[in-house]
């Protein structure tokens, strides 16, 4: 009989050491489906620069935190995000080795995070206001990473389609940690600022930015793919097939989840399951490989 237990609460967040061996992972790691493969691959292009930016902004925010427990959560969050950034970076190297040169797009992603969302040479109160604005943007992005993390943990159709186990482990390890720490960015923003208007603005900017990068990233990957050779044009319209098939997050995941985020009573803890995430993390091959 399975023990019935409540959802674990008050979790201490800790970075986990992981190691991945990409050498055996095929370019189209969802077999015979470059379209779906690249819809997910866009994430690999966004995450290293994006998550390094999270780390940088949250480090800057630390001195403003006046809650010991939240500070511990933020420190755990930073370590986990740093490990994510490094691990996705390994995938990018593997892409380049296989003849898919992703550097032009990564350069554009760096422009978004380090340029548009960078320091802007501000000082004093303006620097602080811009810092909190960026924390609000991270909270909005983290809402989606939590939703996507919950999706990938439950994406049985990818296993059935024969998706590469190493890639699935990277995505699920990452997704599980996103679910595990899904409350931190929102808690930090509510502690530091909490203004509702800023949350709405940050969510609007985040949706626009993510949709534009996802669309452009997919078209870029489909055009550059050395096997597809531009025969299939990329774009988010492919979600109409891959979403219902369970190979990518369905487009309809987005709308209701944004409506939930925009409620004043929004709590990230209602998205996803901590116990499912922790159970995956306790059995992740990459986390166990790093132990040896």
């Amino acid at each position: 009989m399975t023990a019935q237990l409540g959802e674990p609460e008050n979790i201490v967040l800790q970075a986990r050491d992981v190691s991945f061996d990409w050498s055996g992972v095929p370019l189209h790691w969802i077999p015979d489906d470059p379209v779906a493969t690249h819809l997910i691959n866009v994430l690999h292009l966004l995450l290293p620069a994006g998550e390094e930016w999270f780390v940088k902004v949250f480090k800057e925010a630390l001195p403003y935190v006046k809650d010991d427990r939240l500070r511990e959560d933020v420190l755990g969050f930073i370590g986990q995000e740093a490990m994510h950034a490094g691990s996705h970076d390994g995938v990018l190297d593997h892409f380049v080795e296989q003849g898919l040169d992703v550097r032009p797009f990564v350069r554009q992603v760096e422009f978004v995070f380090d340029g548009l969302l960078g320091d802007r040479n501000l000082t004093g109160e303006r620097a602080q206001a811009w810092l909190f604005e960026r924390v609000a943007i991270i909270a909005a992005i983290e809402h989606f990473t939590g939703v996507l993390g919950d999706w990938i943990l439950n994406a049985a159709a990818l296993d059935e389609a024969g998706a590469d186990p190493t890639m699935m482990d990277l995505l699920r390890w990452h997704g599980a940690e996103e679910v595990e720490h899904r409350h931190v960015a929102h808690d930090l923003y509510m502690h530091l600022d909490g203004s509702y208007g800023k949350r709405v603005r940050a969510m609007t900017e985040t949706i626009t930015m993510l949709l534009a990068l996802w669309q452009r990233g997919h078209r870029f990957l489909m055009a550059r793919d050395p096997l597809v050779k531009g025969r299939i044009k990329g774009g988010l319209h492919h979600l109409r097939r891959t979403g219902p098939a369970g190979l990518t997050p369905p487009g309809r995941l987005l709308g209701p989840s944004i409506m939930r985020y925009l409620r004043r009573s929004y709590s990230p803890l209602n998205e996803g399951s901590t116990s499912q995430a922790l159970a995956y993390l306790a059995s992740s091959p990459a986390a166990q490989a790093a132990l040896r």
Partner: protein
Amino acid sequence: MTSRSPRWTAGQSAGQIPPDLRGRRSRDPFWVVVGALFNGIQWVRSLRTPVIPYVRPVDRGLTLVVQETRREAADVVGLRLGAPDGGLLPRWQPGCHLDLLLPSGRRRQYSLCGDPADRRSYRIAVRRLPAGGGGSIEVHEDLVEGRTVRVQGPRNAFPFLASESYLFLAGGIGITPILPMVQAAERAGADWRLVYTGRSRETLPFLDELAGLPPGRIVIRTDDEHGVPRSADLLRDAGPGTAVYCCGPAPMIDAVRGAFSAGTLHYERFAPAPIVDGRPFTVELARTGTTIGVAAGQSALEAIKAELPSVAYSCRQGFCGTCRVRVLDGTVDQRAATDQGGDSMLICVSRARGGHLTLDL
């Protein structure tokens, strides 16, 4: 792992409009437009003086009183803590610990080992470690009945999840988080085994409480009777669907982690690995000019944190790279796999080679 190779940026500043994706134009028109729009929004917003919100301090500490102490084994004391007015305490789950803020200023974490259904008291058990940092001795000698102590928590670094079968591995005082798990598994009717190891029976706390559970599920394995256990012996009962929960001395956890092949392994890690062959050194924080001493058994991070509480760190084991700091002067004894050499170090594990370092902090 955090700093990427510079070839990704190809010598350009990240703030410049990037080239287009086909390499035809040096400034992608899409980003020219987006950049102009976004910068425009920020410019309009900058016309107003920013409103800086007041960040309200949050104190989550509790003051508890020692209601009862009890000798649980040769050198283990059990403490029952409650609110001074006998009121309800925050809820907890198996695997949770409390942070005790001892009168000396030491901060120590102890697993809760009582009954989660008891909302009016917490129980912890502390082994006296004469060669430790002094925290356990302080608990043994100063926290007598009637004394008060500041605590933070409960927090959970060892969450207990639903499963059909469990193998619990407890080494000595490592029984403390395991005990409530065993009781929860028994209550839930799960299939469970406990292997409880230690030097001798006299050193093992809570044997009396374990005696109330079905004896066929518990193996007490003491070094004086059975010899030092090998990890393969400990894991013998772990089938494919078994969730393994391990808590004990660091070498025991490391051995079990190393011997574990596939399945679900949960373990508790409270503290970073002990410092091997550490020598004292001094660190100058260049931005303030302060010089602080780092003791032989202390990490640079611990010493710096006492001076700069908002210094960033995370894993404390040298892999995540969060605490990387620029080194302005001195030679680094690099002890982290991800230390990249040159002009930076991970202050959580790396140390000084020549007795002094100047850091960009």
